[in-house]
């Protein structure tokens, strides 16, 4: 088969698996994204490669994975732009102290547990090409992330954007997202500086300058985009082309600064005008292609790197169990206690904890980054993928247990709902 034929066949197969397994998961009340993550694992060495190694080698020959990887990276850049676009500083207003406390505690507690866990994992799952500090910081961050898009999707499905629990969870996830991406950028910079590609001072100084430029100079300068949109009443191809060029230029810049292209894409999304109609219009133009075509490629590529066979033996499964346990204890427990201290009731605080514990595909983004820069090993990658799946799968049942949907429904009537949830950009299918 030619390279193009192989790629086309791979894409078709990935879409079929992602959509069909996604539908099955949706039937069981899970977000579609969990099914798509599982589809990636099914197509990888864990299932297809184990059951039919010959077929797997024919469908996904190692030499063809470069093309798949490149396409999936483009998809991720577009996805991170959408994540940034969904981030609206307004959701944080009025939540003040509780949101700040909960978001920071929900980052720092699992981060602390992750670095402590690294003391046990480092001699067993790493090697001396990675310093303990980089390893521990990365494990800490990968325990700390929340899947903002998955969380937003769950809130949209339950029409909870205007319920105090939903609004606070959204604000916490947004604040936490910013913190986690900044921390991750710092760790990636430190690891890459160790490789000698770009000096650390240049990476940190350059990134800070660039972020400052984007927030304080480019952001006000980009308000005209919204005016153009309002004048024309739609996002024209020229306008969309300009936005995509911005995304690519910013991704290129952060990649060359020594952090990662993903951060640049996220930054552009975060600084664009936040008028809901504008955000919705831009999202709608990009999202379907990203969600239906490009993100499943990323899931498949992640699945091809995930080999459950690497988690063999009692000790390896105990390590995986420990990772899941500490990830849940840190994120769910940390958020719960912080929200309770911040003034919420136990049940509401528990619901916040359950929502913040979802990691979804944001965790996969972080883990793939760690594997790419060599800071985590293939076995730890697989264990963490299992953790991401488990924590995402448990979100809805746990939420239902703590704060049943009927209770939310009864309470939602007490709160004004100025716009349908489906009109909120965060409620779109990018989860």
């Amino acid at each position, binding site marked *: 088969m030619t390279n193009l034929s192989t790629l086309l066949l791979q894409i078709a197969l990935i879409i079929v698996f992602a959509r069909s397994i996604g539908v099955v998961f949706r039937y069981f009340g899970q977000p579609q994204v969990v099914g798509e993550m599982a589809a990636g694992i099914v197509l990888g060495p864990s299932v297809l490669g184990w059951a039919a190694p010959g077929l797997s080698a024919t469908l996904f020959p190692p030499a063809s994975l470069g093309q798949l990887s490149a396409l999936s990276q483009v998809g991720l850049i577009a996805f991170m732009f959408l994540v940034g676009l969904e981030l609206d500083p307004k959701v944080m207003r009025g939540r003040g102290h509780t949101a700040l406390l909960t978001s920071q505690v929900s980052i720092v507690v699992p981060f*602390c547990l992750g*670095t402590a866990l690294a003391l046990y994992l480092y001699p067993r799952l790493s*090697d001396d090409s990675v310093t303990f500090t980089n390893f521990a910081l990365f494990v800490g961050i990968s325990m700390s992330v929340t899947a903002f898009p998955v969380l937003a999707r769950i809130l949209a499905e339950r029409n909870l954007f205007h319920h105090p629990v939903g609004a606070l969870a959204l604000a916490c996830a947004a604040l936490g997202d910013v913190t986690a991406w900044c921390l991750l950028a710092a760790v990636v910079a430190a690891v890459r500086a160790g490789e000698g590609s770009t000096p650390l001072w240049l990476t940190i100084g350059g990134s800070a300058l660039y972020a400052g430029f984007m927030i304080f100079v480019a952001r006000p300068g980009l308000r005209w985009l919204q005016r153009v949109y309002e004048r024309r009443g739609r996002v024209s191809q020229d306008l969309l082309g300009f936005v995509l060029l911005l995304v690519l230029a910013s991704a290129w810049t952060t990649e060359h600064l020594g952090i990662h292209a993903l951060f640049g894409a996220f930054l552009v999304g975060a600084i664009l005008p936040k008028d809901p109609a504008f955000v919705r219009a831009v999202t709608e133009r990009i999202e379907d292609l990203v969600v239906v075509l490009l993100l499943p490629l990323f899931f498949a590529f992640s699945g091809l790197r995930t080999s459950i066979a*690497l988690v063999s033996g009692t000790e390896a499964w105990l390590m995986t169990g420990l990772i899941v346990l500490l990830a849940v204890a840190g994120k769910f427990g940390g958020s719960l206690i912080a929200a309770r201290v*911040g003034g919420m009731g136990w049940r509401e605080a528990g619901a916040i904890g359950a929502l913040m514990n979802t990691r979804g595909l944001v965790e996969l983004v972080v883990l793939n980054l760690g594997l790419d820069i060599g800071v985590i090993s293939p076995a730890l990658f697989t264990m963490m993928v299992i953790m991401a799946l488990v924590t995402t799968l448990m979100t809805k049942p746990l939420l239902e247990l703590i704060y049943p949907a009927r209770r939310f429904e009864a309470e939602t009537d007490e709160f004004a709902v100025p716009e349908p949830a489906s009109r909120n950009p965060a409620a779109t299918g990018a989860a």
Partner: protein
Amino acid sequence: MKVLLQYAPMVGVPLLGVALALRVGTHLTAPPSVGGAWRVVESRDPGPACPALTALGEIRDLRIAQSGPGIRVLLRGELGTALLTGSLEHWPDSAGERAGTPIQLRAASETLSLTGDVRRDSLPARVRVDLTEPACGTQPARQLIAHLGGPAGTGPRSTKQP
């Protein structure tokens, strides 16, 4: 004041925990790194022709994926591939000792077994590998020398023996 009283212990204490873990962890050592793509620069067949190795053809490179002491070695031949799993056998604890000591590794699949030693102090880093096919005899059927990230496009220098 109330905010500070809540914020300081709830964020400050875990941060101290992070600092403590990072401090304690600096004394830890991880197994030596042998992972990466190793390009075969020399290949010898000192033993009889064995079916599993014949099926691979000339081996061009070895990809070693490492997770702690565990390794997975992918042999990429001109006719096929073989995946072997195993581990590092012995390695010195201190960085100083590691510099001059070869690192032993061992891996196997259903049909092949591999022993080798990695010298990270040579330039470029070098791995010497003996491949045995147990069903075909106990003597190494193929011996390889590979360099870490060697020059692209250069095939192995073969030394066929009768």
